[in-house]
């Protein structure tokens, strides 16, 4: 009989190891996970988690842009001054101009401001209101960038100026990033850009390398989309068994025991609607449908929550887990997303305070000296919509160079109107920066001017690819473990 055995990972398994007769004197080594310190950096995370008593919506979003410019302007001015001070173009020395509107025609100068890109294809609510007749339904597109017609402007407290020139067209810019541009004003009042500077990578804390020889991994998985259905993907249960060390031979268990922390980064709850009872949709029946337990069971399905809860509770007994919300999870939609209420996962909640934790999106960690910044992927997905390319790693790297992890907030990424501090500004560069729910797994190392080294990881959706990313805490190497059933054709 040909049994289709699930292939656990790409490790080389001796085919006779699992399917052999039991030996009499066989010993099974017990692998233990070493205790590790995994903390949240409260200096940054406290600003993401908004207390209900302090949340107000009386302020406008202008405060957020003001804060961003005030904090990032000195940083980018420093970089620009180092690059351009003393430089002369056409026998004219360039100088810094404080306000955008003080630029004089014919003078070469540099200015600092926030980029605003006027996009013609960006969905605008005012267009819908002013239209009198509906012609066709708007086609939903992936991207709203139109390089020929988009106008790039630089804005600060005094006003805006249009940026033109070939240099500016080739740069990766989105609304909301703070840059310095060098150039001069043209006769039509636009600013012809010659050169551009970003704040570049923020300072990075040195990593405390551990002296032990054991390897330590942080596992990041996103897009689990647990549905609790009968046809729940087998790969999900394989993943959890692997993380608990129950899958594969002793090699796999040993590798799994080196995982000291698991981060579930977004979209853990399935979004597919599958009502529990499929009654006939007739008016008589719908009235007779009883409300059991106080809710209409045909519209609310509690299976995803229960299934995820039991998986996380099993996992929390074995390794410390952090769950981060994604854009489809039951928490607020605007960025930063508040931690998922632990009341949704009652069995895992028992591990709250020891090995289970619900964190905000985005979130900063410090795991054994490794500083991690993680997002559920929404800022990168939003940037993707408004630029031409699709290199996700380049977008993540540029976010680090802008020193801002969500520049499109609040323009196109819904955000809370922060009043006292912009929490998305990166005051330090992390050692690991990951974004969840990306289409495919990509990773690279980014090196900064002062020797900062960051590992960028685009974590793919587990429900589509079956991949979980393991990052070595000491060497910053990223490897991926794939779970697939034989014959499903996943790589």
């Amino acid at each position, binding site marked *: 009989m040909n049994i289709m055995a699930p292939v656990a990972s790409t490790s080389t398994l001796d085919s006779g190891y699992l399917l052999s007769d039991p030996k009499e004197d066989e010993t099974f080594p017990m692998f233990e996970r070493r205790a590790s310190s995994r*903390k949240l950096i409260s200096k940054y995370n406290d600003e993401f988690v908004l207390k209900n008593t302090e949340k107000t919506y009386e302020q406008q979003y202008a405060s957020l842009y*003001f804060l961003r410019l005030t904090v990032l302007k000195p940083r980018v001015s420093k970089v620009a001054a180092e690059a351009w001070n003393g430089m002369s173009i056409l026998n004219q020395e360039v100088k810094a101009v404080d306000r955008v509107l003080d630029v004089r025609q014919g003078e070469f100068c540099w200015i600092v401001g926030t980029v605003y890109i006027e996009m013609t294809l960006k969905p605008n609510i005012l267009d819908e209101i002013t239209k009198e007749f509906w012609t066709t339904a708007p086609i939903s597109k992936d991207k709203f960038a139109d390089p020929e017609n988009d106008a790039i402007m630089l804005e600060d407290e005094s006003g805006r100026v249009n940026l033109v020139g070939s240099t500016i067209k080739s740069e990766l810019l989105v609304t909301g990033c703070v840059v310095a541009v060098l150039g001069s004003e043209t006769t039509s009042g636009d600013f012809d850009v010659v050169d551009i500077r970003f704040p570049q990578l923020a300072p990075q804390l040195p990593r405390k390398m551990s002296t032990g020889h054991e390897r330590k991994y942080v596992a990041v998985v996103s897009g689990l989309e647990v549905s609790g259905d009968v046809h729940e993907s087998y790969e999900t249960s394989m993943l959890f068994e692997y993380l608990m060390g129950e899958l594969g031979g002793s090699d796999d268990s040993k590798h799994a025991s080196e995982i000291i922390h698991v981060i579930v980064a977004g979209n853990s709850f399935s979004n597919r609607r599958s009502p529990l009872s499929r009654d006939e949709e007739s008016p008589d029946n719908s009235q007779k449908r009883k409300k059991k337990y106080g809710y209409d069971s045909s519209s609310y399905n509690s299976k995803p929550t229960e299934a995820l809860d039991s998986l996380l509770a099993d996992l929390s007994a074995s390794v410390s887990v952090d769950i981060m919300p994604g854009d489809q999870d039951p928490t607020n939609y605007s960025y930063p997303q508040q931690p998922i209420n632990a009341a949704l996962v009652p069995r895992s909640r028992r591990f709250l*305070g020891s090995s289970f934790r619900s964190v905000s999106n985005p979130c900063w960690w410090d795991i054994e000296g490794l500083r991690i910044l993680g997002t559920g992927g929404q800022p990168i997905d939003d940037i993707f919509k408004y630029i031409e390319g699709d290199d996700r790693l380049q977008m993540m790297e540029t976010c680090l160079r802008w020193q801002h992890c969500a520049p499109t907030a609040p323009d196109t990424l819904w955000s809370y109107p922060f009043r006292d501090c912009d929490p998305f500004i990166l005051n330090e560069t992390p050692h690991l920066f990951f974004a969840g729910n990306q289409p495919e797994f990509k990773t690279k190392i980014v090196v900064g001017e002062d020797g900062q080294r960051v590992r960028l990881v685009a974590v793919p959706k587990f429900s589509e690819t079956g991949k979980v990313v393991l990052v070595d805490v000491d060497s910053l190497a990223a490897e991926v473990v794939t779970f697939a059933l034989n014959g499903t054709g996943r790589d």
Partner: protein
Amino acid sequence: MAPPKRSQSSSTNKKPLAKQVRLTDSFRQRKQLAASLQSVTGKKLQPQSTTEVIPPAASQITSDKVAESAREIETEDEVESQEFPETPEEDVQRETDEQVVPVEPDVVEPLDYDDPQYEAYFDKTQKVNIAAPIHQQGVSTVVRILKNFDLTAAYGPTVGMTRLQRWRRADKLGLKPPEVVYKILISKEGKSMDELREGYLYGQI
């Protein structure tokens, strides 16, 4: 409130509290209740001989937290030191900067509207203007100074926050907002009167 009945019934060793204390009441509320009872009866409540301080009616429901907090009150110190379990300290890495917490004087002074330093300060700020401000008859100097503070673009938007919040935000960002304005805002009138405390668009936006 009628004085509590101190029933010395031999059937139970428990001495019921005068009011029905729900099990969800916090430990401190019970302590306050005990203290208030003590003042009424003039006698200190004796610590219960049993470990359960549960009113007889509601003895069915138990929970871990209640059983833990239902120990007898031994001393005042023990009451004060009992805390509810928090996340372990080593789990949350507190990295607070050396933030200067704004220290306000305990005694809030009343505002002297006719202080000459306000006139001098206001005249200094008006030197950048070409024309004199219009429709300003009858407006006190203090109000003019505060409105000028609102309109200074360097300190950011004014909508949705009090002037003191805006001042503190500007101070935290290192923009050096004027001390004169701070003194006005922490005075007694500056904290209570809407005209001084809130921005000039208050009530309109």
